[in-house]
């Protein structure tokens, strides 16, 4: 995938390479990434890694896995030092995990879950999708599963019986592809990812239409184990994330991610998700 942000990132990569000498002498920091829209673009991943590496003054290893569960597991068993999770798994393990930072998108730390269908589909709401096939992103994703599942629960329905078949694609971009290609009738997708794709892959999102948007919910945060929140590496990560907008490569990385920046997060940000969780599993 080649687009404007990738080319800009490549310019920055050269500068980062020149200054990379600063990173020597520190242990490698491992940051886990959930499969957000950018996970299929090596240039975006690399730009983020280099920007954070420069900000933290050490090498960073970005660890990717297929499912949220795997990344959460890595964080819980300390295989990674921190991870960019989703609000839902964070709340599932809120007793162990703590918030490091939360991205700012379109001026705030919140996003929506979108319900999408094909462009020719006449459905106007979730209730119109009964008996169809549906694509979720991940069973541990807020926007890609929890929102729709709780909406159905609130309608008195079950995912398993409402849809004729539901599949997990383990990637928000995959949900958009599955709906756009006609593999499934509808999908639950991260609104931030859909909007970002609308910019960089408009042909893909043009083959879908959004029929429902959830309330604004807490954006997927960067988390660390609570017992390591005050450790030097995690604090270094926190300051690097907060200072991304201050450096050129940081701005390029943010631009690639279509984010405004990062800010400190509070637990109350995720109350909406917590509410849905309680609806789903009262």
């Amino acid at each position: 995938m080649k687009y404007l942000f990738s080319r800009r990132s490549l310019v920055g990569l050269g500068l980062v390479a020149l200054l990379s000498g600063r990173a020597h002498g520190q242990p490698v920091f491992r940051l886990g990434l959930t499969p957000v829209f950018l996970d299929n673009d090596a240039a975006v991943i690399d730009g983020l890694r280099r920007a954070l590496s420069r900000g933290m003054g050490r090498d960073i290893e970005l660890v990717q896995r297929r499912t949220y569960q795997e990344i959460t597991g890595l964080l819980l068993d300390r295989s990674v030092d921190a991870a960019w999770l989703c609000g839902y798994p964070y709340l599932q393990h809120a007793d162990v995990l703590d918030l490091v930072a939360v991205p700012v998108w379109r001026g705030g730390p919140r996003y929506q879950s979108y319900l999408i269908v094909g462009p020719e589909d006449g459905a106007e709401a979730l209730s119109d999708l009964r008996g169809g096939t549906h694509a979720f992103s991940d069973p541990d994703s807020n926007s890609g599963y929890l929102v729709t599942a709780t909406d159905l629960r609130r309608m008195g329905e079950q995912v398993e019986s409402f849809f004729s078949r539901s599949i997990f694609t383990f990637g928000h971009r995959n949900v958009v592809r599955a709906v756009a290609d006609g593999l499934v009738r509808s999908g639950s997708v991260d609104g931030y990812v859909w909007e970002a794709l609308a910019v960089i892959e408009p042909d893909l999102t043009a083959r879908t239409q959004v029929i429902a948007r959830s309330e604004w919910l807490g954006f997927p945060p960067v988390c660390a184990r609570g017992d390591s929140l005050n450790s030097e590496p995690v604090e270094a990560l926190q300051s690097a994330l907060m200072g991304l907008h201050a450096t050129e490569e940081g701005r390029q990385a943010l631009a690639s991610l279509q984010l405004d920046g990062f800010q400190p997060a509070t637990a109350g940000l995720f109350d909406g998700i917590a509410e849905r969780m309680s609806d789903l599993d009262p």
Partner: protein
Amino acid sequence: MKWFAPIALSIKLPLLAAAMMVLVGTVASQQVLRSLAQVQDARIRELARMHVEGLSVALGPLVLRHDIWEVYDTLDRAAQAGEGRRMVLTAVADERGRVLAATDPRRVPMDSDIAALGGEAVTLDELSVDGAAPILSLLAPLTYQGRTVGQIATELDVSDLLAERRQALVLLILGNAIAIGLLSVAGFLAIRKMLHPVTTLARQMTESGGEPRPIPPLEIPQGDGELARLARTYNAMVGAVAARAEAERRLADRERFVALGRLSSSLAHEINNPLGGLLNATDTIRTFADRPEAVRRSADLLDRGLRHLRDVTRATLDQNRIDPEDRALGTDDFEDLKLLIQPEVSRLALDLDWLVHLDGADLSKIPAGPVRQISLNLLLNACAACRPSGRVGLRVCAAAHALTIEITNTGPGMPQAALDRLLGDGPMSPGGGVGLRLVRELVNGLGGRITHAHDHGATVITVAVPTHREAAHAQE
């Protein structure tokens, strides 16, 4: 093939050559197309096998887990790759035949029955580009770790291969048509040129009224080839035939003079004998001029002798006349013959039986000359064949349709060589005269027939000549 027979050789052979070329071209084209089809089939099978095996390896664990998205994602990425242009559709089903995913999910939805897609699908080994269908359907088992975990249905677009085959066919037809056309024209001209001497030979043999003419030297092919030798041999044969005809003509003339020569001594005797009596009569007239009775008797004697001489002379002249055929046969002719043969009969002291019965017969169509020559030759031969005191006979009778001349003699019989000359058309053995062959040719010319018999010490040669030539022709 009767219609083919009347066509000239110079057309027939080039046509045959062109037909052979068409046949060879057709067979060769068929072989080329068959080879092309085999290559295409092998290519498409190999491609399909690689496709199925590659997908089996990639999809095996995904199908086992029923991981629909991953199955679809793998198929989709494979379809984006190069072979996607050939594989227009691929669908993967689980072991129960329920579709997990397809490259075109709208056409083959999830959970549909794969059998509905593969209605006319064939197995990998049956895959063939034969037929006009631009899309081939393949249904193959999806094997993973030695067991069948699902099925793969694939539609292959072979329109390019069919187009390639059609193009090859068109090119072959065009190429063959042009090549055969050019070669046929060239072959036609070449064979026509090669056959030109044969055409000339046939024309010289047939277009000259049955009388072969030599080929002009300019039309004889150069060199020493078969046709040049054939033309020269033909010219030599034409020359030999002409020389033979000339020799036979000369021999026939000579034979006539030979016959006359043989007669001349007898004639001299015939003339000489009465001369003594005539001279005596003139002496008597001179001596007894005063005795009117003696003068009258002598004058009568002179008259009879001179008349006899006149008859002999006339008969000889008639026999020797150059163009005697214009006159029709009559009783006089046989009287002449008797007059002519009598001296020979007398010289050889033979008895002559003479019976001519022509009353009422219509002999207007029978020329006198040939019949006289035939009869005279046969009579002379009969005389020569007889021993002294033998008997020679001529018996002529005219029936409604034929004049029969029967010559008999009491000689010892004709030798085989003489019979061959008289009764056959074969080549004459050297040494013999041509008189008997002349008889045969004259009889043939009259449309007649010769038979020979030797019985009770007598040889009988019978010549039957039709009184009407048209009737004879009709009978033939």
